[in-house]
């Protein structure tokens, strides 16, 4: 079996300027900081980031925003990171951030659709609002729905609580968030793991993310703190 365990630097080596990256977590709880740090260190630019939110300054995706590496952010909420608004409104072209807001449930479902081969789905969320702009409205059995399309990415950064050497992963508490859907929706998937165990140590009934999705495993992920 291929060895998937590597350093954070090795794991992010393929990430290039302009890449699209999904980042798990919710307000950085469930975000693999060790991988974010490696991308900050690498300094790649013009990234499109798909994440529930913008973290906070100094945490999660917030670090990439502060470092000017994010060109486009697709998220459901950015209110707790004031830097996002600043960069959305800046006149300095190279600092400019485009932010595409997506309802949280729609965002989760779009990522799921991307990973599961669906061409889209019909949701009642956003009907009659500016979220509906430019989208097909489809009437099914007496109700209007928006047709929402799948999201995929070049890379996904996943935070695992316990990961075996094949990549099978579990998530403790509220660290699960977007991680399981993102693990299926990107071409190259990196798990930042709090704990790495031998294959077979996780009960097959309790695995949440299959190792078949995982390309790289990086140990040493730290506990979350706000």
């Amino acid at each position, binding site marked *: 079996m291929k060895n998937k365990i590597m350093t954070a630097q090795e794991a992010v080596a393929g990430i290039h300027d302009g890449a699209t990256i999904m980042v798990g977590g919710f307000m950085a709880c469930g975000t693999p900081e060790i991988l974010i740090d490696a991308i900050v260190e690498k300094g790649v630019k013009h990234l499109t980031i798909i994440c529930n939110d913008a973290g906070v300054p100094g945490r999660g995706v917030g670090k990439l925003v502060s470092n000017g590496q994010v060109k486009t952010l697709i998220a459901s909420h950015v209110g*707790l990171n004031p830097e996002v608004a600043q960069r959305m409104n800046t006149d300095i072209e190279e600092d400019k951030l485009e932010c595409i807001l997506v309802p949280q*449930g729609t965002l989760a479902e779009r990522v799921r659709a991307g990973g599961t081969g669906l061409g889209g789905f019909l949701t009642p969320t956003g009907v009659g609002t500016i979220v509906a702009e430019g989208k097909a409205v489809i009437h099914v059995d007496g109700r209007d729905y928006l047709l929402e399309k799948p999201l995929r990415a070049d890379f996904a950064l996943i935070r695992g609580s316990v990961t075996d050497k094949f990549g099978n992963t579990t998530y403790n508490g509220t660290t699960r968030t977007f991680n399981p859907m993102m693990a299926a929706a990107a071409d190259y998937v990196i798990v930042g793991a709090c704990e790495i165990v031998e294959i077979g140590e996780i009960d097959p009934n309790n695995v949440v993310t299959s190792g078949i999705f995982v390309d790289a495993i990086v140990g040493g992920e730290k506990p979350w703190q706000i």
Partner: protein
Amino acid sequence: MADIKEIIAARVAKELKDGDVVNLGIGLPTMVANFLPEGVHIVLQSENGIMGMGPAAEKGKEDVDIVNAGAQYVTVNSGAMFFDSATSFGIIRGGHVDATILGALEVDQHGNLSNWIVPGKMVPGMGGAMDLVVGAKKVIIAMQHTQKGAHKILKECRLPYTAVGVVDMIITEMGVMEITPEGILLTELHPDYTVDQIQAATEAELIISPELKPMVL
């Protein structure tokens, strides 16, 4: 007079039945859990992945892997479950949440709600609000009646909508209102206010219930 937020939270709490699955927004709505009547136990859903959320974690006893949707350390009750965000919003959009309680920037007589954006000024994002108000069986707006005197309960929302035609009930420090096909029905009035006062604080024309009662506190 008690704290305005406490009045509102206490009144909202009376809308909840034993066993209800409830999602409470950040801020005032979160206080509702402190005012549940004796014998009423609700199951709190937190959209970041908890069914059966408990109170805030005690200082020094936090589990760093367990936070609420406001990123504060919380506990979970016995019988809780953790899940991912697609599952969480499947529960929400699927109609399995009995009530969602949240604030508003504006709400109108058609049950339209605007609570997520002030274009050019405040663009925090809708988070889970659009899904919650569309999916929950009952949408209760819990808020102060006016924004420093400016109307928030309108004929027509002026800010971009969170969703259209979704609000069931508005509870403020002045009274309790239900959205009906005919408009906003005032069913309870806080004893500190008159009908004229609450109407003056409301842009939409209130329909006064023939059974208007003092606000249940």
